[in-house]
């Protein structure tokens, strides 16, 4: 042992010096996607006009100003919030449950939000006028958001309460799946007894949409997502410790219960808020962490978290560009586009890595 100590080699330079470069590249992609998303859309607006409007100058066509400022800009900002929030919460879930297929919906939060929305749209139905929320003076769009939040919060409370009593994460995973099943069944029941218009409205909601999040909505969404991201970044160290499993994590000084609560709270805030405002959006949460791991080639969450944040935002902006099908008057539902793009990504990752377990970290 002593001779080798004398011959101690200097620390080998790690490939990590490349990684901050990748983060910068991702940030650049986000910026590019942001500009593209604002520049593209069903209505053709020249790029110069777009830039002028963003800079606050007046343009001849007032409709363009309205479109860029009131429609495209909030949409692009929403895309950034949604993408980063979902990707980060997906990463947390994958590490916490040591499951490469976990995503933000695995705890049943999106199902809970869907239940809340269905309660307003289907069960409340045409008697929404007498619905309690209206009595509070909150009508229109906020009623949906609040209902979805209530549903997600209910599920979150349930999961947190159970996670305190449960030592094995697999149990939590199953709990989430069962919650999703039960809420799905209740919603199906309501749909069975609803009028076609109501079912169509609910169906539209399930497609997910980045539009309509403006003004105060956007402010609230951005705030909640911001808080969720901060909590997530604070959980970088616990997540790293959890990479080796809970036993090792405990031996390294991690209070697993507290960390689990932090992680679940962060995920609930992110997934719940995003689903409440935008409806269920799939695949971003599952696919982006895998993409980020493949790009950055690291398992260190201090790099993966910001990386996923940026990659998620970039991917969602790209998907949003695709949904607008520039030139066409029709827009595609976002969930469809993310699934169509996300599923092949996951396939590619899995097939390339072969050993799916090791692709986790």
């Amino acid at each position, binding site marked *: 042992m002593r001779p080798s100590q004398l011959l101690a080699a200097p620390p080998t330079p790690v490939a990590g010096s490349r990684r901050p470069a990748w983060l910068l590249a991702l940030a650049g992609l986000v910026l590019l996607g942001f500009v593209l998303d604002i520049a593209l*859309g069903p209505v053709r607006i020249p790029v110069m006009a777009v830039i002028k409007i963003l800079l606050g100058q007046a343009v001849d066509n007032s*409709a363009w100003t309205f479109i860029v400022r009131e429609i495209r800009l909030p949409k692009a900002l929403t895309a950034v919030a949604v993408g980063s929030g979902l990707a980060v919460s997906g990463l947390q879930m994958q590490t916490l449950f040591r499951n490469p297929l976990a995503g933000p919906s695995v705890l049943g939060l999106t199902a809970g939000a869907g239940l809340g929305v269905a309660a307003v749209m289907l069960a409340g139905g045409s008697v929404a006028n007498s619905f309690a929320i209206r009595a509070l003076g909150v009508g229109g769009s906020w009623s949906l958001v609040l209902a979805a939040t209530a549903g997600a919060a209910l599920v979150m409370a349930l999961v947190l309460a159970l996670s305190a009593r449960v030592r094995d994460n697999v149990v939590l995973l199953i709990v989430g799946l069962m919650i999703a099943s039960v809420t799905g069944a209740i919603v199906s029941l309501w749909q069975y007894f609803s009028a076609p218009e109501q079912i169509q409205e609910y169906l539209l909601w399930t497609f997910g*949409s980045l539009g309509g999040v403006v003004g105060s909505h956007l402010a609230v969404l951005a705030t909640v997502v911001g808080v969720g991201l901060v909590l997530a970044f604070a959980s970088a160290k616990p997540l790293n410790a959890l990479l080796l499993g809970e036993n090792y994590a405990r031996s390294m000084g991690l209070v697993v219960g507290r960390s689990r609560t932090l992680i679940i709270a962060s995920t609930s805030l992110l997934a719940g808020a995003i689903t409440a405002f935008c409806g269920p959006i799939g695949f971003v949460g599952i696919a982006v962490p895998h993409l980020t791991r493949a790009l950055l080639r690291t398992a260190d969450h201090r790099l993966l978290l910001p990386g996923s944040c940026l990659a998620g935002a970039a991917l969602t902006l790209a998907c949003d560009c695709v949904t607008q099908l520039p030139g066409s*008057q029709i827009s595609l539902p976002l969930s469809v586009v993310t699934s169509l793009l996300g599923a092949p990504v996951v396939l590619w990752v899995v097939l390339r890595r072969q050993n799916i377990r090791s692709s986790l970290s």
Partner: protein
Amino acid sequence: MLYPSLPTGRAGGVPPFFLFRRGFALAAMLLSSLTSLGQVAALKATTPPKNPAPRTAQPKPASAAAVRGHTTVDFAKGFTISYVPGGKVVTILSPFEQKTTATRYLLVPRGAARPAGYADAIVIETPIRTLVGLSSMHVALIDFLGAADVLVGLGSLKYASAPRVRQRIAAGKIMEAGQGKELHNEQLIAQHPDLVMATGWPGEGLTRYQTLQAAGVPVMLNSEWVESTPLARAEWVKVVAALLNKEDLVNQKFGQVVREYQRLAALGHRAAKKPSVVVGLPFKDVWYVPDADSYMAQFLRDAGTTYHWDKTKSPQGSLALSFEAVAPVALAADYWLQTGTATTKTEIAAQDARYAAFAPFKTGRLYNNNRRTNAQGSNDYWESGAVRPDLVLSDLIRILHPELLPTWRLYYYQQVK
């Protein structure tokens, strides 16, 4: 309420008193149709090439002197009525399919022998004494002919506005028949009405109602709502008229509706200024607007408007556009019609603050067609509005060209404050 009152009629024999009124009405019809023809001809001659001839089909002049007890189909494309020895044949067509799938109904007077041939037709004995209608429009079809007493069942007891029908519901004389999968087959079979009228889409076929048909209850599948013009939709009253043997009445009343509608349409087409209009309330990012072939687009043409998607067709009957595509039109539109379930401007703005930037919102030219909504939440626009397109058009012209109909009081529409 100063709108033309329609004479109530009766089927069957005509006492001399009515003969006189009939003769006068006939003459008046002839005269007004001639004048409207003339008006239209003048319009055709004077309108610039940009506005093509109005798309209201003209009734054949010969139908003015129709055969007694017979009626003809002039506007609708979804059904035909032909009179054969011993009965009538009503054919419901599916206008969407390449090869028309048609369902034929053989209407045979009660007690008479069934005419030969038409082996595939479903037999209905006329006049029908009891009818179950699964859609609120069927209520309107029946009520138009003053035959509300024939109605013994409804799809949903909520969706009915006609006063006579509501009375009968309150008196417990109308059963709830359910809809779709929830059709109360057993109760219907026990009730054994002479006909069940259902709404379906073309090509759906009658498989869902096999149980009823096997029990001897005839089912007629209407597709009145795929008609592309308001008059065509309203003309479905003639189907019910054939079932009730009230052809003369329907000729009279429907003819009145047609004349009034065409008079108003002429007004609309002649209007000097054609304000631009945007229709509907978007949900999140999707805005459904009527396409070129929808009856709403026809209303807008006949009311003299500039509708941005007047020429854009879509197979679904409405265009699902992105909010951004419609926003430029809405920002500059003169009027905003049909704002969903909202009744106040605050409600609209609460849905999405951006709606407040639209020009019609700012000027207050916001109108919704939910004035006649009863306590159960049922909107009469979808009921009697379907058979009285002349009233709807009057509303629209009153809204869009107040100077043309200064004394008209809005019937189905109301301003959203």
